[in-house]
């Protein structure tokens, strides 16, 4: 199928982009990487009046460190994240998650901001954002605001963005010495996760762990930070009992649905298995 008629705009600043959104009164869509948007246009599941291409906005793809955060522009492509030493060293979870996304071509075009705004409950980028407690920097008609990742995702493919707002950048805490793991079960390579688990934490010389955070993907209507499970692991040495308890708590936080990839029951079955796998891998990483 082919897209319905649309107008094409290529603003050169975020402000222009936001103004254009307002002008079309909610009937325009921002085009970042386009890897989810364009097929939806082609299938005519979206028929916007206009598409606002933000790829020409300078600096929107910048990756920069400072003030205890790593700030990643919304237009940073997966391939840029893959290639970035800053990301590998200081947001290692993102680096580990990116290879699970789509395929080479998708990663060459797809963007961090696009994936976050698409808010796929099985997406790796929302998973990383909630797991790391990222801050979303949003620009609107009247100025800028910030939101926690957890508040940003509001449901399946639904975010807190107003129709005239745009995600400008994402700030991840500078996790220079943390370890990170992503494990997934998928039906085929690069496919949407049936269940995904992200885990990150700081190994302390005394053998314990600090700041362990676990995230769950594809088991809820949005990416989930497993708060209770994570908080329960304060100071853990990741002994089996702690791991089991965390896995059990993660299961409590999962409310999966059935779809063509897997049933809800099987997703529930996988949650503790993958959490154990992720924490086991995390424990191995300190060696």
């Amino acid at each position, binding site marked *: *199928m*082919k897209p319905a008629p649309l107008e094409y705009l290529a603003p050169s600043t975020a402000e222009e982009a936001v103004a254009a959104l307002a002008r079309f009164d909610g009937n325009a869509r921002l085009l970042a990487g386009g890897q989810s948007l364009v097929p939806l246009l082609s299938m005519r599941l979206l028929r916007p009046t206009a598409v606002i291409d933000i790829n020409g906005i300078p600096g929107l793809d910048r990756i920069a460190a400072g003030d205890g955060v790593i700030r990643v522009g919304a237009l940073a492509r997966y391939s840029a994240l893959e290639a970035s030493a800053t990301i590998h060293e200081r947001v290692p979870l993102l680096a580990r998650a990116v290879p699970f996304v789509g395929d080479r071509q998708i990663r060459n075009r797809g963007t961090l901001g696009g994936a976050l705004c698409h808010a796929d409950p099985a997406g790796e980028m929302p998973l990383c954002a909630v797991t790391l407690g990222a801050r979303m920097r949003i620009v609107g008609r009247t100025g800028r605001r910030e939101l926690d990742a957890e508040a940003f995702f509001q449901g399946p493919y639904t975010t807190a963005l107003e129709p005239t707002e745009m995600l400008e950048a994402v700030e991840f805490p500078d996790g220079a010495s943390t370890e990170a793991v992503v494990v997934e079960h998928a*039906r085929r*390579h690069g496919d949407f996760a049936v269940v995904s688990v992200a885990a990150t934490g700081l190994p302390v010389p005394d053998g314990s762990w600090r700041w362990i955070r676990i995230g769950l993907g594809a088991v809820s209507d949005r990416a989930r930070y497993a708060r209770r499970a994570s908080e329960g692991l304060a100071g853990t040495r990741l002994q089996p009992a702690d791991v089991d308890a965390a896995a059990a708590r993660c299961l409590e936080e999962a409310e999966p649905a059935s779809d063509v990839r897997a049933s809800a029951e099987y997703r529930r*079955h996988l949650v503790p298995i993958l959490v154990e796998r992720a924490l086991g891998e995390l424990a191995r990483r300190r060696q």
Partner: protein
Amino acid sequence: MDKLPWLGASVKRKEDDRLLRGSGRFLDDVEETLALHLAIARCPYPHARIRRVDATRALECSGVEAVLTGEQVVARTEPITVLRPFPGSAPTVFHGMAHEVARYEGEPVVAVAAVDRYVAEDALELVDIDYEPLPHVVTVEDALRPGAPQLHATVPSNVVVESTVRAGEPDRRLADAAATVEGTFRINRVSGAPIETRGVIARWVEDTSTLELVSSTQTPHLLRAQLAHCLRMDETDVRVIAPDVGGAFGLKIGVYPEDIIAALVAIDTGRPVKWIEDRTEFFRGAAHAREAVHALTLGADGAGTLLVLRDRYLIDLGAYHGPLGPPLLTSIMLAGPYRLHDALIHRRVVLTNKVPMGAYRGYGQAESNYVREVLVDRLARRLGQDPADFRRKNLLRPDELPYKNVSGVTYDSGDYARALDLALSRVGYETFRARQKECRQQGRHVGVGMSCYVEFTGYPSSAFLGRTGARFGAYESVTLRMDRAGRAAISTGVSTFGQGTETTFAQVAASLLGLDPGDVAIHRGDSQGTPYSVGGFASRTMIAGAGAIEKAAGQIRDKMLRIAGHILDVDATALEATAGVVRRRDDPSVHVSIKRVSESAFLGHPLPPGEDPGLEATAYFDPPSSAFGYGTVVAQVEVDPRSGEFALQRYVLVHDCGTQVNPMIVEGQVQGAVAQGIAAALFEELVYDRDTGQLVNGTMVDYFMPTAADLPAFELDHLETPSPVTPFGIKGVGEGGTIAAAAAITNAVCDALAPFGVELDRLPVTAESIWRALARARAKR
């Protein structure tokens, strides 16, 4: 001298150069000036009454030139014929477009022709169609329930045909059997899913009042015959051209509704009309395949001799007979490569509100192999025998061939047990059991599974097909013509869709004419200028095509020798054609080039007295018998019994397709078929929602075709037993690789999980299905 120098040579493919450069010519690469592009409104419901169609607003759109409705199509055309119906089938009237009632989601209802596909799709949104959804049924079990929605007035029970094959005394054998096992198996609905979808361009040629159809098809001549019938035209007034075809796999056989639609719009508008299937249409319009439910029973005596097979199965036909019809080979090949005299096979072909079923590589054979080989393993386990030993004992021996199986077809040749032993030795089966035990002690669950197959390739004869109600013959044909430069050209109605026919046909002709394959051009896939042809399917092209080439080339070669004899003043019987020359067999220094001989033939002089000019022959070859390929797959897996996740660690296939014309191409065919076998076994399934009757995963995003990263490297080996019943001993090879995959992997998983007593009985095999089977097995204990 080697008599057939190019037979058995891995000649690089003639097709490759253009395809590698991107200068192949696929359907959508054919650009016509002033073409109209079709977009088709398809019924969004599984079953609906079409109360009203109003295309007024669509016709008013700028750029829209024509609209075609089901009412017009039904009035102006005949229903689609069925090439190979199940004998005794009730008819299901299937037109190019639905009128009054649509019976599957995706059935064409209205077509809009516009200057461009984008505009046509815009206009489609303005077509008003008033649907009244009707009750639907999307499983065979539901279709058989009393009071089930009825699809066709001609088929009150939703069963288009029910029939039984009986051999020997199955009931008595079942009563006598020391051990019997039963299983109910569900085979998934899948798609051949070529990367190029279907497509068609129709042109009305005013001067000659003829229709030209360019179509991405495997069977130009059969498509022409079916299309002419639908359009109430003479076959000779229709020309069908197949360009390069981007994969077909059985799905592109015969006429489809869109061929008819495009033709009608072309006739109405006088302009070329193009329709390119998009992928969302593809999953709702191109043939689906394989879906069936089998209730199979096997019985053996206490020593492990297979005694009897009983199968009751249901084929899910979808809403109509498609252009080809449901698979007949399922029952014909149920007995497989085993010695078996007693069988009862009861089959029903059932209607559901789904896309009509068609062929997919391994048509019917993949289905019967899966159910039989999985149950053979269970039977061996029941008897406490090793599955390899059990098979070896029951496999037909070379000295028992030819052997007529319980369904009446005759296996020609081969050494079935040798293929099994070779495959087993590749995975070190002798020591595997010990390793398996060690692994289990370490908590690792590895397993090996095997699956033996025998494969029906080609058709036995046109007479055989006639007896079973087919509307086509078993033959193939070529016109072979030399030119003045001494090169040859073959005209064949077979189209090219990846199987390497251009190369292998050239190899056969070159071998017989004393030429280099590079000197043999292939003109293919055009019904005009090629003799009547059947087409490329059923692993038949090479067998039947080689026979036709042999006959035509024989005639030409004899004439070349006579002309050369005249030129050289040597008796023709003393000459041979080889390496570009005709020469004395006993004195190669006496020779004349084939170029010179050809020149004489086309100049008309010098020629022997009474000899006609020209070097051209047309030949038809009707194979007297089918050839049966065979082989064994051995798969090795490791399974995580907690999650059900598994890894396919090794995949070994040993096969025999008789004489190999081009071993490189044979290997490629087998690898590709293996990948499709594994795809259907582990990944793919077209899922319908029972409540809404809709296909829930009709996109490439949700239909899980495996990527390179999802498949292991395959380990292939082959035997080469020339068939005694075909030209050059060739057996077909296109399909074999698909046949044994599902059973081998299923058996490997069950073997790995034998301590849990796991039995798998549905496809695809997924981590979740294994987890569920584990849960069932645990509950049983």
